[in-house]
């Protein structure tokens, strides 16, 4: 079986399994009277399936492909995401794509892209504290890197490169704050991930800041990153047609497929950037009261269509 068909078959199987699982979750939530938006669930399922496919290394043997998919399925982040709901699954899926990109960078020794990613990750919380959630995710990645062939010490070093900027900025900032006599109470714990519609984490906000910064730094550093800008506009156009979750799912699918089948790490990062930018734009829009009101109205209409509230006696 060629590598392409191996990926395609296992990816499709994973997508179907994920779709079934989330369909079941959705059905269960319907049966309990709660309303879950079906479209994001579908998008999440497909994104997850292709993502799982994407997580396999490029040079793959069958037993290893199966092991990788097993690892991905057992990933605590995914399990947690599944428990949190479809929106969170999309967020986790996008995060895992970040991880895959990170892993590709680690194995390719693409030091420039690694530095850009680290800087983007460090600056992200300045725009959205939700991005702090990416750091525990990176730590979980350490567990995944070694089975993929990166020696544990090497994996730890690589992650240190990614995490150090935020650690330094945080330490320096807190130190200055302390010197200035400011209170550290608010900094003792990172603020919780903001919850948006129906209690799911705002994955859009989660992804917004790294994308924007990554693209900004990337554009400054390498002309090839201009491609990201083109894809960004395409994503915006797609988002208008497909709406936010659909566009993100599409980006996730494209990125995952690209990473899995063809792309070197840098190209994969371009696609990630595009996805992030799209989600970032949506997140910015999400912050506007008008958008929120419109989104709330849409959700209420959808809920009324799917499960009409019985008239009170």
């Amino acid at each position, binding site marked *: 079986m060629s590598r392409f068909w191996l990926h395609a078959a296992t990816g499709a199987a994973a997508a179907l399994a994920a779709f079934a699982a989330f369909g079941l979750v959705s059905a269960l939530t319907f049966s309990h009277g709660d309303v879950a938006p079906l479209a994001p669930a579908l998008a999440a399922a497909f994104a997850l399936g292709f993502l799982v496919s994407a997580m396999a290394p490029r040079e793959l043997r069958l037993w290893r492909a199966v092991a990788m998919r097993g690892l991905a399925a057992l990933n605590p982040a995914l399990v947690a995401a599944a428990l949190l709901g479809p929106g969170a699954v999309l967020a986790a899926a996008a995060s895992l794509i970040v991880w895959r990109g990170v892993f590709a960078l*680690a194995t390719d*020794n693409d*030091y*420039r892209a*690694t*530095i850009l990613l*680290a800087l983007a990750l460090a600056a992200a919380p300045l725009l959205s504290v939700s991005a702090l959630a990416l750091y525990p995710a990176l730590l979980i990645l350490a567990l995944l890197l070694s089975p993929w062939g990166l*020696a544990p*010490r*090497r994996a*730890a*070093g*690589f992650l*240190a*490169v990614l995490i*150090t*900027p935020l650690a*330094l*900025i945080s*330490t*320096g900032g807190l*130190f*200055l704050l302390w*010197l200035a006599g400011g209170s550290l109470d608010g900094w003792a714990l990172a603020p919780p991930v903001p919850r948006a519609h129906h209690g799911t984490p705002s994955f859009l906000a989660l992804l917004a800041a790294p994308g924007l910064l990554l693209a900004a730094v990337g554009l400054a*550093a*390498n002309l090839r990153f201009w491609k990201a800008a083109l894809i960004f506009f395409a994503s915006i156009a797609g988002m208008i047609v497909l709406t936010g979750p659909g566009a993100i799912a599409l980006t996730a699918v494209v990125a995952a497929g690209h990473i899995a089948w063809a792309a070197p790490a840098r190209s994969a990062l371009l696609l990630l950037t595009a996805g992030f930018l799209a989600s970032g734009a949506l997140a910015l829009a999400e912050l506007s009261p008008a958008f929120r009101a419109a989104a709330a109205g849409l959700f209420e209409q959808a809920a009324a269509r799917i499960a009409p509230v019985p008239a009170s006696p």
Partner: protein
Amino acid sequence: MRLPRRQFERALQARFRDELVDASVSALRRSAPQSSAHRLLSFPQAAAGAFLALTVAAFFAAAPLALLIALNAGATLYFIAAIGFRVYLTVITLRLPPKVDAPPPLPDARLPTVTILLPVHDEADSLASLRTAIDAIDYPRERLDIKMLIEQDDAGTLAEAKRLGLDEAFDLILIPRSAPQTKPKACNHALQLARGELIVIYDAEDAPAPDQLRKAAAAFAVADETLICMQAQLNYYNADESWLTRLFALEYALWFDSFLPALEALRMPIPLGGTSNIFRTEALKKLGGWDPYNVTEDADLGLRLAREGFRTAILDSTTLEEANCQTGNWVRQRSRWLKGYMQTWLVHMRDPAGLVRATGWRGFAAMQLFVAGNVFSALINPVLWAVFAFWLATRSASIASVFPEPLLSLNLAAFVLGNCFFIYLAVIAPLKRGWPELAPNALLAPAYWALTSIAAYRALWQLFTRPFFWEKTDHMLSPAAQLRREEALERLKAKGA
């Protein structure tokens, strides 16, 4: 009667011994006295220094607080500029394409003759590894002119060289005893005897990449005549041995893989490393060779050739060395380097206007921020840390009065951002080499800086007490180096050497 070449050369050396010694010691001093570190300070420098000291003393007597605030502001602005310059260099390096297409290799028939200088002093234990490393060089033997330079009174090294048959494999040149007893003086001696079109120096513990000379020859063949030096990258074969060697390796990675390529791209003067620099021999001779009075003659030469309008390029080839793994030995080595940087700065600042004319404002700024910055930051760091720690512990108003706003904000920003930035530079330094496992050690960089500061004060002391003293670095202290020696001895034994 045909006389073997070596025998003839030895006879020549014996006949012209005094002339060779004189030229190796005094050629540069005579031809370009302003470029020699023979004198520590020129008269205008001494006068300016005295005037500055008197002015500071007068201000200190009249308005001590204002003076301290002014010094504080000056140091802070300098720090910010030095940090900014390194940020600039880092960005430039990140913008460079990862791999530059190498020029096509030259066929053997077109390869130039290369003189390899191997200056050794009290290095008997290193010779076996050195022989193996030189044997491993992929270059036609008949186009190599290998000269091992041994001080005349270094009986131990000479005996070991003969025991290993190096007097057969290489030209052994005995350097007559004369002051100053430095590596550049020995190299100048050999430069006059060099037969190669190119000339390269390797230290006793070096292991150059086998194709290094071929790469350099190919690069020189396609370069214009202004390119007269190629500096190979340096790093360590025992990088992962202790915290000190890891940090040393991070520093070298930063220096040779990040900063120097950026300086090259910007056409700014490049302070050379002490080994693995390959020159066009004739151009080097015209420059007057190395300054025997400068204990970082390499850095000085890099700046000198830039002043003459020549260029240095960084060669994409690495020479591995033994990283200093003992703290005392490391401090001694570093103190020599920093003393040499001080000498170099003083020499090139004898004529600041000439420096600006020769290298432009950018070259001049690079000199101040890069060469002087290394020394100045090492000297001033402990003072600033001590003041800061004292203020933190006591919150003394007397200290606080030296830090009025907005100087305080500027100072704190430079302190926090500067330290964070330098730590992160060390974190990312090993990535380019594919050594991410060394990255976490960068968090220990402040301890490394403390050692650098100790070395800087030792260097400052020696600059005035023993300016030409060559603080010898002991080698073969690392278990990895000893293992290499044992392997080399085995190999030589197997070859019947």
